[in-house]
C-alpha cells in the first residue's frame, strides 16, 4: 500500500516540479529587462558575467560581504546539501558511478553539517530581533521541513538503519515505471514524505531563489550601455509610434 502511495506521490511531485520550474524559468526568460541596471562595479564582458554569477552561486559572494553569520550558516547548509543530494544518486544509478561511490563518506557526514547549518539559520530567525521581524510562518516551516529531512536521514544513516538495498530497488523500479516494494519503515516514510513536500513546494515558494539568481538583472547584465544600444521590444514600440 505504502509503495503505491509513495509511487503516486513521487510521480506527481516530480511532474509538478518539472512543469512548475519550466513555467517559472520560461516566464523569467521571456519577461523583458528594458533598462541596463547591473549593480556596479560590474563586469563588462560575458565572461566576466559568468564569473560573477559563478562566484555568487558557488561562494555566495554578496552574502559574504553582507553578514558573516548568515553567510557561514547559509553556505554550510547549501554546500552540505549539495553533497548530500549528490550522494543520493547512488539510489538512482546501477551500477553506481565511480565519483558517487567516492563521495559516499563525505556525503554522510555532510548530513550532519547540513543540520548544523539549518539550526544556525533557524536560531537567527528565532532570536535575532530584526530577522524575527521579517519572518513569516512559512519561513519557519521551510526550515523545519529541511531540518526534518536532514534529521530523519541522519537517523537512518547512523542510528536505525533501513534496508537501503530495497530502497534502491524501489527507486530504480520507479524510474522504469515498475513499482517494487518499499520497506515498511516509519523513519523512511517520514523522510520520503518530507522530500515529496519539498519538491511540491519548490515551484511555488521562495525556493525559486535558486533559478531566480540567474535571471537577476543586477547580477547577469554586462556593464556596456554606452557601447551597445539595449532596447526591449515594448520600449522599441514607443519609438516607432512617435518618430
Amino acid at each position, binding site marked *: 500500500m505504502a509503495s503505491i502511495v509513495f509511487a503516486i506521490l513521487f510521480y506527481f511531485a516530480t511532474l509538478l516540479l518539472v512543469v512548475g520550474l519550466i513555467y517559472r524559468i520560461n*516566464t*523569467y526568460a521571456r*519577461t*523583458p*529587462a*528594458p*533598462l*541596463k*541596471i547591473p*549593480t*556596479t*562595479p*560590474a*563586469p*563588462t564582458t560575458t565572461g566576466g558575467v559568468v564569473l560573477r554569477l559563478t562566484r*555568487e552561486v558557488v561562494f*555566495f559572494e*554578496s*552574502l559574504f*560581504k*553582507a*553578514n558573516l553569520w*548568515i553567510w557561514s550558516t*547559509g553556505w554550510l547548509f547549501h554546500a552540505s546539501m549539495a553533497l548530500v543530494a549528490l550522494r543520493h544518486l547512488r539510489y538512482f544509478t546501477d551500477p553506481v558511478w565511480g565519483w558517487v561511490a567516492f563521495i559516499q563518506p563525505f556525503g554522510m557526514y555532510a548530513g550532519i553539517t547540513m543540520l548544523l547549518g539549518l539550526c544556525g539559520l533557524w536560531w*537567527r530567525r528565532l532570536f*535575532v530581533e*530584526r*530577522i524575527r*521581524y*521579517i*519572518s*513569516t*510562518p*512559512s*519561513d519557519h*516551516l521551510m526550515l523545519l521541513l529541511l531540518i526534518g529531512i536532514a534529521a530523519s536521514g541522519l537517523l537512518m544513516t547512523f542510528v536505525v538503519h533501513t534496508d537501503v538495498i530495497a530502497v534502491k530497488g524501489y527507486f530504480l523500479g520507479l524510474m522504469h515505471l515498475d513499482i517494487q516494494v518499499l520497506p515498511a519503515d516509519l523513519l523512511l516514510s517520514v523522510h520520503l514524505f518530507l522530500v515529496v513536500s519539498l519538491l511540491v513546494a519548490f515551484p*511555488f*515558494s*521562495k525556493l*525559486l*531563489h535558486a533559478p*531566480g*539568481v540567474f*535571471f*537577476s*538583472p*543586477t*547580477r547577469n547584465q554586462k*556593464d556596456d*550601455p*554606452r*557601447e*551597445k*544600444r*539595449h*532596447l526591449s521590444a*515594448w*520600449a522599441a514600440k*514607443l519609438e516607432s509610434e512617435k*518618430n
Partner: protein
Amino acid sequence: MADITAPAYREFPIIPVLKPGSMEGKGPFVASDKINEAVGFPGHLVDDWHDKAIAKMGELLSKYRSFKVFMDACVHCGACTDKCHYFIGTQDPKNMPVARQDLMRSVYRRYFTLPGKLFPKLVGARDLTREVLDEWFNYYHQCSECRRCSVFCPYGIDTAEITMAAREILDSIGYGQKYSNEIIGKVHKIGNNLGLPGPALLDTLEGLEEDVKDAIGIDVRFPIDVKGAEVLLITPSADFFAEPHIDSLIGYAKVFHASGTSWTLSSMASEAGNFGMFIGNYEQLRKIALRIREAALELGVKRIVVGECGHAWRVAYSFWNTLSGVGDGAGEVDRFAQMLQKQLDHRYKQPTHICEFTWDLIERNALTFDKSLNDKHIITFHDSCNVARGSRMGDLPGGQFEIPRNIIKAVANNFVEMAPNTTREQTFCCGGGGGVLTDDLLELRVKGALPRMEVLKQSVDEHGVNFMATICAICKAQFTKVLPIYGFDRKMVGGVHQLVSNAIQLGQK
C-alpha cells in the same frame, strides 16, 4: 520644521534596535490635482483604485524582469536588514530593505501566487486595503533608491526597482508625491527642475562671466545655444545658481577654457536631472531624456558631456543610449538612434562625464594646476550612490571611484579616505536622493544622513577633514542643509570641480 534635531551618534556602529512605527505617517505631501494632471496622471485617488492598482502591478510584472524576479526570489535571509541608512537613522523596521519590499511582496503573493491565494496568513500575504496603500505611499517615499541593499543581497534584489514600481502604481491611480511630480511638470513646461526660464538663465550666465572676470581677470565664457559647438554640456540646473553647485559650474567652464574646447549649454535641455527615474515611469524617463537628444541634434554637437549630478549620470550612462540613442553601437537599421550616433564623435565615450573629460586632459598633461591653492582644505570624497552603484567612468569597472579621486589628488595636496565600508560601492546615501529632497521630508533626511555624518565626524576628529567633495547636485543640497544640524559648517561640502576651479591656472598652456 525647526525643531528637527540630529539623532545621537552611535558610540559603536552597532545595529540599532527596532522602533516599530517610528516613521509612520511621516511621508511626504501628496500631489494636488493640478500637479498630477500636468504630468498626465489622474488628479486624485480614483474610485476603482484597488482594481487599477492590481492591474498596474500585473502590467509591471510582465514588463520588468527585475520586478518579477525580485518579488519571487527573496528568502528573508536578513542580509540587507542593517544596510539602509534610513533604517539605521530611524530604527523603523519598515525601513529595512526586505521589510520595505515586503510591503509590496505581501500584496504580490495575495493576488499573483497560488500559496498566497490559498493560505495568505502562512506566507505573509495580504489584501490591498486603503491602509496598505497609505503604507506604500509613506514608506516607498522613505527610500532614496540608492541601491546599497542590492550590493549585499545574494540575489541582487534591488529595492530601488520595487520602490519605483510602487511609485509608478501610486501615480497611475492618482496618489502621486507632490515634490517629484511638481518638478517633472516644471521640466516639461519650463525646461529644468528649478523652473528657471530661458531669459533668467541667460542673465545668470552673463553675471557669472562678469564674476569670473572680476575674480581672475580672464574672459571665461558660459555659452548657451551655440550651434556647431563641439561639446554640449548637460548639467543639473542647481549648478546655475545654488551654492556650492555654482562653483563647480565655474570649474567646468575653466576646464573648457583651458583646453580650448568649444562648448555650449542648451536652454531647451537646461537640466541633467531626470525625476522620471525616481517615479519609475518609463514614459516620463524617456520624454525627459529626449530633450537632450533634440538639443544635440539641433545644435549639431559632436560630444555630450554631463555635469556633476548623481542620478543624472546614472540615467545618462546607463539609460540614455536606450532612451534616446545618446551612445554608440546602434544596429544598422535602427534609424532613430543612428540619426544621432552618426553625428557624434566616437573617439570619445558618449555621453562623457565631466570628470572623465577633465581627467583625460590631466592625463594628457593639458591642464596646469597650482595645488597649493587648495592647501586650506583637508579633503575627503563622498561617493554618490547613483554614480557608485549605477554607472561607470572610464574603461574599467570601478573607474567611477578612481577618476574623481585622481582629479582631487591632481589638484590638491591633502586627501584622506573615509572608513572603507562606507565608500565606493558600499557608500551611504546622503539621505536626500531619489525624490526625497524636500522640506516635508526633512526629519527623514536628517535621520538618513546619520551613517554618513558619523563617518565624517570620525575623519574630522582623526584627520582634521574640513572639505567633503562630491559629484552630485542632490548630495550638495542635502549636505548643505543637514551639516549644520549635525554641528558642521555647511560650507564643508562642495564639488570636485570646485577644487579644480580653485587650482587651475588659465593662460599657461
